[in-house]
């Protein structure tokens, strides 16, 4: 199986195509609804003034995300009280909610891969071509299994402000299994399946009861 290590080069990310299973290793960061909204409003569209530790966090995550991977995940984490963090359950969350932000976030931070589930829309697909980057589909619900690929929790940002599921967790993973479902060449497994299943649906709807 194809293996990729973060940071991922342009050349490597251009070489993977839809349908391809990949094992990911290296450092990645989680980020979902609150994070995308915060990134977009504070640093990309700049409709909101940076507050508190925003600028400091921004400088640090820029380094993590450059040629990096962002994971749509709201984990269950143990050791919150003692700060001895351990990922207990950490599967992907539905990605489509980040569709309004994703392409801009990918380009702004130079992100090579977004991991999630359910796939994303045309704006993100265009973002994948331009950045370049891809969409990696993880197995939704396989949370205990995926948490085991997390070797170490390296840190967390905005834990207090966003809460456990929405905070930015920096993790080191080994052999995290994904399937490429949107690539940097404009191909999306999701749009082809949507079309083919719609065709079958139309045939079924035409059948008598």
């Amino acid at each position: 199986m194809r293996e990729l290590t973060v940071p991922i080069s342009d050349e490597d990310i251009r070489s993977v195509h839809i349908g391809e299973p990949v094992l990911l290793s290296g450092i990645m960061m989680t980020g979902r609804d609150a994070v995308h909204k915060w990134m977009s409003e504070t640093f990309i569209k700049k409709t909101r003034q940076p507050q508190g530790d925003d600028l400091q966090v921004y400088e640090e995550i820029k380094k993590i995300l450059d040629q990096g991977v962002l994971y749509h995940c709201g984990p269950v984490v143990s050791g919150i009280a003692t700060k001895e963090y351990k990922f207990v359950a950490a599967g992907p969350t539905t990605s489509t909610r980040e569709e309004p932000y994703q392409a801009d976030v990918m380009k702004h931070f130079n992100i090579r891969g977004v991991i999630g589930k359910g796939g994303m829309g045309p704006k993100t697909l265009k973002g994948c071509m331009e950045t370049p980057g891809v969409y990696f589909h993880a197995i939704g619900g396989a949370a205990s299994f995926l948490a085991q690929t997390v070797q170490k929790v390296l840190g967390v940002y905005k834990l207090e402000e966003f809460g456990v599921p929405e905070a930015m967790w920096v993790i080191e993973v080994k052999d995290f299994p994904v399937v490429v479902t949107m690539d940097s060449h404009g191909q999306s497994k999701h749009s082809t399946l949507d079309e083919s299943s719609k065709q079958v649906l139309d045939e079924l709807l035409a059948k008598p009861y």
Partner: protein
Amino acid sequence: MQKDITNETLELIRRTSSSLPKDVEDRLRASIEKEEPGSAARGALETIMKNIELSRANATPICQDTGTPIFYVHYPEGWSTRKLKEQIRSAMVEATKRSFMRPNAVDAIYDKNSGNNLGGEDFPTIHFEEVDADQPLTVELMLKGGGCENVGRQYSLPDNSVGAGRDLAGVRKVVLDAVQKAQGYGCAPGILGVSIGGDRGSSYAKSKEVLFSKMGTRNADPEIAKLEERLTDEANQMGIGPMGFGGKTTVLDTKITGMHRLPASYFVTVSYMCWAYRRRKLTVKGEEVEYD
């Protein structure tokens, strides 16, 4: 004598979150053979099976989205529902501390996570129903994740977009439409809970209630039972497959139930349950405690 069920409820939550019911696991395992060797669909199902075993062995959540906790409590006449509610709520707090549950209750107006899975009077959801004094107490729990909850749909028939009239033929059409629109978003392969009738609220509640029954449980009416099987079969013809990777396994089972409706309304509600179909039951009779 009313028994304090805090500890028993905590154990019920642990089991529900970490150990998938056998009937669901069996159905998932059987579907592996239907997918091509080496395909992404088969890979997904194999990972799902590994995850099920690992979660059970380590008592860790099957899915990090530990879902909306939905309780159905049947209590013997004379028991205090106020006390039962307090005990269930304190079990929920403890389950969250022990990482059986993710802090999952977010105040929608102030956007703040409560941190302990309690939120106002409505989170967790607890339904109470009284039974005779000599009957056991039963507590059924379903954990329904947000991904699949988001792809649930309600149709008001007639629905011209799919040519669905106010009859079972129309019901079939909108359920198939719901499956196509759900694609892999709800963590396919899914299980469909379908309620026909009611008002908008009761119809949604009923479409989840029907999901408490075991896999393969058919409606008592043979015509509805036939429609349940036909819908599962036709949904699987759409080729959406596990996770929407393409494949033969899109829906594992369909359960239909009916309610009375107003002459003016004809709702069809589809609740989509992800493969992580977490539901368990606690039975308490005197000092005897059973988990199913």
